[in-house]
């Protein structure tokens, strides 16, 4: 049973560019949440997707957007990258929106230079 998979694992982008990160949820899961984790900090909630719609959003600007596909996989897009967007981006999947037990992927390490 494949767990949560994220791609790519590492990424280097230039300030001002746009980036797309991808996530495939654990088999049987229908909800995907995205988190940003700065070095030395705990993960911060970006948003959650369920039934192909953004259901909840954390305190992140509109430069952060996402999408969920019919197969439940999800993308996180960040436009106009800033140096401060450098972080580990984590995807978590769960069954339903109440995250009783969330499973995380290995993350995508984004470096903005």
């Amino acid at each position, binding site marked *: 049973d494949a767990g949560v998979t994220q791609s790519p694992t590492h990424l280097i982008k230039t300030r001002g560019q746009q980036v797309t990160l991808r996530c495939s949820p654990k088999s049987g899961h229908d909800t995907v949440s995205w988190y940003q984790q700065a070095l030395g900090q705990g993960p911060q*909630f970006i948003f959650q997707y369920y039934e192909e719609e953004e259901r909840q959003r954390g305190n992140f600007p509109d430069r952060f957007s996402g999408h969920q596909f019919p197969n439940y996989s999800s993308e996180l897009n960040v436009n106009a990258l800033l140096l401060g967007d450098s972080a580990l981006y984590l995807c*978590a999947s*769960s069954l339903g929106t109440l*995250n009783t037990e969330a499973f995380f992927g290995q993350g995508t390490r984004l470096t903005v230079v």
Partner: protein
Amino acid sequence: SQQGEEDPQALSIQEGENATMNCSYKTSINNLQWYRQNSGRGLVHLILIRSNEREKHSGRLRVTLDTSKKSSSLLITASRAADTASYFCPTVDYNQGGKLIFGQGTELSVKP
């Protein structure tokens, strides 16, 4: 704040010793979860304890929950170098779709 707060922030022990880390929270909970994160990697779900449970075991892990004190503890017995990681006890905000709210975690270092 609503997040689970882990204590201590850092803990260094020798292999074979027990490691205890604590978690405090401010909101009412339905359950509390503990996660482990190896350096710069994804989070691994360790254990979930429900609000009506006081203690739960999983292998070398023992979790306790005291809802009257809004606190939980994670005990790792007979620690190994591979237990070196950060440990988190996020709370769940059911008013916002069950999002997990993380503190800074406890950074555990187990020296061989």
